């Protein structure tokens, strides 16, 4: 994009909450709903992402646009109701926005961020491995060493989503000195240019339109211009709850989509569906309570207290669990028609399972809760 376009659009970025949510609803009910099966099988919907950006769905969570985390979650919910893959792309895009906004370098935190926030530029996140590494589940796959004009970074990330040549993503590397001992970590932006190898991933059972690649970095020079946080841990601690809370938008949307699927067949199949567990009204009531809890948590993303962190992790787990139950129930409610290859319920079953296994997965979240709830004693 040229900078004049950005400037023109910047004037128009006084999105109200209602405009964002109405804009998302119209996109979800129109082009996104139609494209959902194709996205599931591999179509990368950058056109739709651009539309979502235009209505503010990719920028409202940023401080410069009011830090409206709840609206961003609701926007992701609206899109995920039609297509979980697109919800996931929005999440990856949103957290990349959080990295850019924090960068000390104006090249990232002004021009690129503004284009990113409006859906004029696209980038994702490669923090799955680092989040697990910080939790003690894995070790860092990217290693950095200090050089005169920045860091040299090497290593491979198995899957990074929402990237393509010309796009970018946030990554973390462990800084190693000569003796292989890790001094700290850095968070930086990787630009997917000719220095970065993108390798095709094995075929997944769903979510194939999220443009997910294996990334290999071979002594990539990261200059201060692309550094987001050095050291990275204090920054990650600051955005950790936003990172996790934003993911709940996917779960809420998948659950809402499942309720749509169940209610769609109620006039025809209700006579026998009433013998099923997890009926739509029951699930809807539980989802409404969870949604209210998530929206309350989204008002104070920087609380940082132990009880708040426990609640955020639990809400994220609850979202994934309820999505799993809702997806199974949607398929049971629709019966054979939900089992057709292009039917929404069977796609949502795979989307709900993605919610449950994407980092941090249910098991990682429970592991983290267990650590958080174990009292510390002198070592």
């Amino acid at each position, binding site marked *: 994009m040229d900078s004049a376009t950005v400037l023109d659009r910047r004037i128009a970025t006084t999105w109200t909450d209602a405009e964002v949510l109405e804009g998302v609803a119209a996109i979800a009910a129109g082009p996104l709903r139609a494209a959902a099966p194709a996205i599931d099988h591999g179509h990368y919907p950058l056109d739709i992402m651009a539309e979502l950006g235009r209505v503010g769905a990719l920028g409202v969570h940023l401080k410069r646009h009011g830090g409206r985390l709840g609206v961003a979650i609701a926007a992701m919910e609206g899109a995920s109701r039609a297509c979980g893959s697109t919800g996931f792309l929005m999440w990856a895009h949103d957290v990349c926005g959080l990295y850019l906004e924090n960068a000390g370098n104006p090249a990232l935190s002004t021009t690129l961020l503004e284009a990113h926030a409006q859906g004029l530029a696209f980038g994702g996140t490669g923090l799955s*491995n680092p989040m697990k590494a910080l939790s003690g589940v*894995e*070790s860092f*796959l990217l290693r950095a060493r200090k050089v005169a004009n920045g860091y040299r970074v090497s*290593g*491979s*990330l*198995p*899957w990074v989503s929402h990237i393509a040549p010309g796009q970018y993503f946030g990554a973390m590397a462990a800084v190693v000195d000569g003796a292989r001992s890790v001094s700290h970590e850095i968070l930086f932006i990787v630009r997917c240019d000719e220095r970065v190898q993108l*390798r095709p*991933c*094995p075929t997944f059972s769903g979510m194939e339109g999220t443009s997910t690649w*294996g990334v*290999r970095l071979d002594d990539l020079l990261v200059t201060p211009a692309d550094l987001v946080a050095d050291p990275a841990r204090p920054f990650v601690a600051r955005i950790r709850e936003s990172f996790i809370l934003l993911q709940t938008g996917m779960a809420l949307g998948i659950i809402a989509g499942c309720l749509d699927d169940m209610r769609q067949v109620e006039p025809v199949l209700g006579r026998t569906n009433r013998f099923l567990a997890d009926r739509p009204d029951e699930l809807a009531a*539980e989802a409404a*309570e969870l949604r209210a809890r998530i929206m309350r948590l989204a008002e104070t993303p920087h609380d940082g207290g132990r*009880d708040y962190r*426990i*609640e955020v992790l*639990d809400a994220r*787990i*609850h979202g994934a*669990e309820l999505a799993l139950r809702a997806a199974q129930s949607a398929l049971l409610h629709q019966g054979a028609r939900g089992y057709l290859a292009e039917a929404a319920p069977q796609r949502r079953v795979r989307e709900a399972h993605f919610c449950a296994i994407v980092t941090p997965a249910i098991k990682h979240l*429970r*592991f983290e*809760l*267990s650590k958080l*709830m*174990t*009292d*510390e*004693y*002198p*070592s």
Partner: protein
Amino acid sequence: MSETWRQYICRACGLIYDEAKGDEDSGLAPGTRFEDIPGDWACPLCGVTKADFEPYEAPMAGAALAQPAVVTAGRRPGVVIVGGGAAGWAVAAALRAQDPDASITLVTACAGDIYNKPELSVALSRGMSADGLRRETGDQAAARLGVRLLAKIHAIAIDAGRSRLRTTGGIISYSHLVLAHGAKPALPRSLPSNLCWRVNDLGAWEQLRARMGEATQRIVIVGAGMVGCELAEDFARAGHGVTLLDVEARPLAGLLPSQASDRLLQGLTALGVRFHGGVAVTGVDRRSDGRLNVALDHGSTIAADFVVAATGLATDLRLAVSAGLLVDGGIAVDPASMRTSAPNIFALGDCVSIDGQPCRFVEPIAGQAGAIAQAITGALTGDERPASGPAPLVIRLKTRSAPITIHGAPDPQGAWRVIQDSRDGLVMEQWRDGTLRSRLAA
């Protein structure tokens, strides 16, 4: 040369490269040693490089069984108890005595081993070990009582409307829920948890005991309440140098009249305990030599090998609040049935408050557990017999240098009458509205 084939695991995706099998799709014949794989080879599943593999050893058979059980949905909802201390096990035993068929699940963050907590504050001088203190392991108790034990699982939240408990091991549905999770040491900011010990459960005591070893240690105990005074005596009798600190001028000032405090202090002093009253700790730091510095509010510092905080307990109300239960410093309960503000949730032990007062003593637990078992089994059979309330309190301070017994619940602000004060002993009483409220003997 040995033909022992090794395995390597991809740190990114968990794929295992088995030297015996090779990776024929990439042209690696069976029997290709890992070190002979070309450097540009990539993980056949996720594409990371050879450098991202590390040696892998398959876990021993049965190792997975040692992990805590994962909860599965679909069980018949029964009674779920949160907490594997004396209170939780007392309810399990009382329920089992009244109903041989009751489904009982006990969820606990600890191992669920059964021990007598008050013994922790006298165990060191008696030369006891953790094994000696442990009367039964959690697994043994669970087998004896027919209880499904979920040990090392944390309770996270209660969905009271749907009668579900959310835990780190999954969701458990309940017919009745019993909260017996106790209270936690309340650490002021000046006493960081990574430098200050607390003795409130067997696990912590065992760790502290192991760290103290056999050498003579300098120990600072912060807080001269019941636990602080008992530990001070215990550590001093075990030969350690003990300094006991309190913001009040005399030990146990919140519970005892000054005549009784004086006797207690004389007893402790005779054992070599140094008591500093009227001081507050402002911070604890580790010095470069590894010892600790305890800074006091009037400017001086005390060097210590160990700092033990005995600054009181507080109930973590997060779980109760998640259920929307009435709380009042602790979880508010009806003293006759130990029922909380939710009809099918009960609470007992250190986590409750009765008329706004916490009740953190061992003595009433058996009565509370019996009342809960009766309320639950009565409810299950439709037989709503009135539950018997908890028995009157007895508090015993296990300081052998000056043992003190209190009957009843004294009012901290109430006046005491001296009945006897002689070499043979001290007897005092508290009266209100013409009735005996409390009686103390030292």
